[in-house]
């Protein structure tokens, strides 16, 4: 069975339909940001400044891509560890961020915030950066270009495969996996 496709930016209805463990293909535009860009975004918010990007309805992919080769829009671009972005995430959800893509555990407060703000956390396959870059058709730096790989980019993706880790109902695919294959509690 082919995974279903989901349009970006995510609609509220799409978020409500997604359940932990769903494998989906993303189509459309998303933003990229990782450690350094998050630190700057939060500093701007705390200083009361306008952000260089609008976050309402957006999805952020935690990635620092490799340089593009000839005739590639972007180099290999797999997910980085999401937990490092936990301390910065709630202010972004308050501004309307609706989706995040990364890999690895999120903290309890973030899982609760996903329920409260009706947002979703996806994982892409960590280490599959070369394959994932095939699904990125365009890449443009839109802020913090001095951060190089850590700049904020806009990616246009087609059929970008992700798994829902944490849905907006408290579902958690990592916890489900441990419950099924791990030792009894």
């Amino acid at each position, binding site marked *: 069975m082919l995974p279903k496709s989901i349009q970006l930016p995510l609609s509220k209805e799409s978020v409500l339909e997604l359940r932990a*463990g769903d*494998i989906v293909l993303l189509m459309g535009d998303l933003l990229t940001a990782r450690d*350094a860009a998050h630190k700057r975004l939060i500093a701007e918010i705390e200083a009361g400044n306008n952000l260089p990007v609008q976050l309402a309805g957006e999805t952020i992919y935690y*990635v*620092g*891509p*490799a*340089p593009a*080769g000839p005739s*590639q829009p972007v*180099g*290999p*671009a*797999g997910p*980085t*560890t999401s*937990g490092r972005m936990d301390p910065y995430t709630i202010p972004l959800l308050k501004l309307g961020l609706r989706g995040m893509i990364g*890999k*690895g*555990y999120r903290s309890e407060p973030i899982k609760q915030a996903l329920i409260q703000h009706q947002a979703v956390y996806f*994982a892409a*396959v*960590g*280490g*599959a*950066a*070369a*394959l994932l*870059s*095939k699904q990125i058709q365009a890449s443009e730096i839109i802020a913090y270009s001095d951060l*190089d*790989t850590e700049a904020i980019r806009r990616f246009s993706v087609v059929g970008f495969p992700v*798994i829902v880790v944490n849905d907006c109902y408290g579902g958690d*695919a*990592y916890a*489900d*996996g*441990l*419950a*099924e*294959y*791990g*030792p009894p509690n």
Partner: protein
Amino acid sequence: MTQLRELPVDKITKAIGDLIQESAYALPDDYLAAMRSAQEREASQVGRIMISTLLENSDYAASQQIPTCQDTGMAIVMLEIGQDVHLVGGGLTDAVNAGVRQGYADLRKSVVADPLLRENTADNSPAVLHTDIVPGDRLKITVAMKGFGAELMSRLQMLPANSGSAAVTEFVLETIRAAGPNACPPIIVGVGLGSSFDGVGLLAKKALMRPLGQPSPQPHIAQLEQELLQQVNALGIGPQGFGGSVTALAVHIESFATHIAALPVAVNLNCSAPRRASIIL
């Protein structure tokens, strides 16, 4: 008197640059064989999809000559320098870092000059350099391009002397449980046992350099490697953390003498992209 063999350091520069380029694009055969065998025994369907995706990724990267993973890491360079080698033509550390700059020219720059100021060095230098002086007139270079998703989840503890293998096992399992999906499983687990605070971390790193499928030559250590692997896989974390029977491909232990007061243990994790290669000059 023993004849010294002259070795120009620019040969070291070139060798390191070449090793980095090769390992960025192609994962080692021993790892690929271990992954294919893991795919057959993985119980979870999602887990099997994850492993086949990683194998497909590796094929694609090699065919396109692009990096398997965007995080081509920080260069860890280990040199075994024969004591009858005379290095000429420049400084050794400079030559190593020049090799790193050449090798990473087209790769991601993931190194900052200062851990607090965090300005990117823009050329991925410097390397973390370890040297051993050994008998002979050869020089062996091992380069690991260490991704930091798994490095970040690695741990070290100074256990008290009589803790024994049970406490070592608990510390290894605790580390891997906490790492979960963050370390990009199926992982390779490098364990250092003994030595001192500084030495045990390097033992763990060296354990990651051993090709998969080669148990420790010491029978009691080889047995602990097997027992640990079974217990790690019983955690159920599975490929990419979505649950399953293959959390680690191997546990490798390197041990060394230690003090009567302590049982140092270090657990260095490697993600499912072990970029490592060696050459003898």
